[in-house]
């Protein structure tokens, strides 16, 4: 503590940073994450959860009021659910549970998009991530590890470094955005923004933007996916033409003939 005090005397901007609740949030959540991450022992996981709740409380103390109480309640509940689900995604040990928590985090994110009025983004998040990618993931996890736990899932690499890096990154980002955001989040500006986004032709506007200004990016992304698809097909069909079976030493069929 003395060291911190000296430092804060030396640099006033650092001093304000340390007094800021977000700094404490980042610090507490780093400890909580380290305690909760699977690191070879189950000791201190409960303590980690309690510290994590304290960190959430710390974060809640510096939230901006967003307007009416119902707006506040909806946003905070969604944000809280998303945060908790995110933490659980990385701290749970059973991969199936991790995937389910991740799905919940995605639903929370989609909800926040909806609250902000970005309807298409919200719904597309659910379709693409929760609906397609994560289901495929879950599918593979269940096939690969029907038992749920595997020994290599119980230890995450470098829990300490990961927690510290994450805390620093999140702390810096949220402090920067928090400072900038004060001007943008004035109620009149927010209302205007909402009106613009919630226009009747919401999807049409987004589509025009995507296929007008960002056309090349969209096309390149599409081409990449197509290349991946063609690659996967060619790998499969290369294996198909090999002789498949011998019945008493007699050649029976290639895979292609067999599945015809």
């Amino acid at each position, binding site marked *: 503590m003395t060291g911190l005090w000296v430092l804060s005397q030396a640099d006033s901007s650092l001093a304000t940073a340390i007094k800021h609740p977000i700094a404490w949030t980042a610090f507490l959540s780093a400890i909580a994450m380290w305690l909760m991450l699977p690191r070879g022992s189950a000791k201190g996981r409960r303590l980690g959860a309690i510290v994590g709740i304290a960190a959430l409380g710390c974060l809640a103390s510096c939230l901006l009021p967003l307007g009416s109480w119902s707006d506040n309640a909806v946003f905070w509940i969604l944000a809280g659910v998303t945060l908790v689900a995110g933490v659980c995604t990385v701290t749970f040990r059973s991969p199936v549970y991790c995937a389910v928590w991740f799905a919940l985090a995605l639903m929370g994110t989609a909800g926040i998009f909806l609250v902000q009025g970005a309807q298409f983004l919200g*719904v597309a998040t659910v*379709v693409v991530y929760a*609906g397609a990618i994560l289901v495929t993931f*879950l599918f593979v996890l269940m096939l690969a590890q029907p038992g749920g736990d595997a020994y290599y899932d119980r230890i995450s690499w470098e829990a300490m470094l990961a927690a510290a890096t994450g805390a620093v990154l999140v702390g810096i980002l949220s402090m920067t955005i928090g400072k900038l955001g004060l001007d943008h989040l004035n109620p009149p500006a927010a209302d205007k923004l909402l009106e613009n986004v919630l226009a009747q032709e919401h999807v049409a506007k987004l589509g025009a933007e995507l296929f007008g200004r960002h056309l090349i990016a969209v096309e390149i992304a599409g081409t990449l996916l197509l290349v991946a698809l063609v690659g996967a097909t060619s790998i499969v069909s290369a294996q198909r033409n090999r002789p498949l079976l*011998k019945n008493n030493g007699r050649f029976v069929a290639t895979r292609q*003939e067999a599945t015809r």
Partner: protein
Amino acid sequence: MTFETIITLIKIFLLLGGLMTAAAYLVLVERWMAAWVQDRKGPNRVGIPLTKIKLFGLGQPLADGLKFIFKEDFAPKHVDKALFRIAPIVILTAAIAIFAAIPFGSVLPPLEIEGVPDPIPLLVTPNLDVGMVYVFALSSIAVYGVILGGWSSNNKYSFLGALRSSAQLISYEIPLGLGLIGVVLFAGTLRLDAIISQQADSGVWNVFLQPLGFFVFAVAATAEAARLPFDLPEAEQELIGGYHTEYSGMMLLLFLIAEFLHMITAAFLIVILFFGGWHFWGLTGAGDEVTWFTAIARIVVLAVKILLVVLTFMLVRWTWPRFRFDQLMAMAWKVMVPLGLVNLIVMAVLVEYQQDLADIVGAESLWPLILISWIVTIGAWIIAGLYAPLSTDNTPRPMSMPFDAETELN
């Protein structure tokens, strides 16, 4: 509480009540239908309790519900408790939440009450501009209920059911999307109420305009609802009950209601996208100007159409045998996806050159579009039939012979 909130709440209550009642009584209808097909009487005894009044068996759903409620809610010891409890809740929540974006009528005429905005759209979320994508998103969430239910049961039959089911649901989402994109392209909007209005204004239902899209969508919607002949997730003869083998009592009821709601959703979507929703020529009119007569006529027309589609689903159930799994997958990827792509390309070209076509023919009508679309449909159908002929061959495949590691490795 503003009037809008109150009206939204009333709409939600009406929708939930209507849906639950409809699901309960449609089960009865399904059992009647099954009895009729199999030449027996079906449930016709349960009427008013403690009397001898039978009422054609109309009390049956209530008796069924009571039975489910009073059964023991039993979770076997070997299941994963948390996910076992969550799975039915997830699937039912997703199945019900879909109806937030689905219109159950057109609009109500002005009520002449101070402070009530008019006209009142019969849709819970009238401001949702992405209605179709929202429906799609929630129907893909339903897969979670099935997978989690099957996995957490910790039982091989349940797990096989869940695996089959997730493969099936993911595969058929693609033709489902391709089928509806044609409609969305033609209507130029993702809002379901706007898609109905567009069909009502032109007087031409989409089923006439894009029969190929309708075919692909209807098959994919049946598969997504896991109705026979696509009910591989629970195939009773092979998997006991599929992914809900271990469930009993209320938890099982949640799964069953969700399945029925999926069928009702599929019926709603087929009617709204392809059969003009609440529109019927000479009866309902078009546009937002309604009298009480047209408003009620629209609701009734929509309900009757949906009932007819649901009855078709039920009749199909007792008409077609179940697909084998490889047939199911081959149908999705080798038949439905290409047909859907053909429909999509044709619709995109037609929408782009609609005006030029009208100039050539010299009339502002949809006849040339319909003609081209039907020609393409018949052509694509013939090609699909030649390329992927109907195979009823069930002899053992060479694939199922003993695996020869030496040849496989070399």
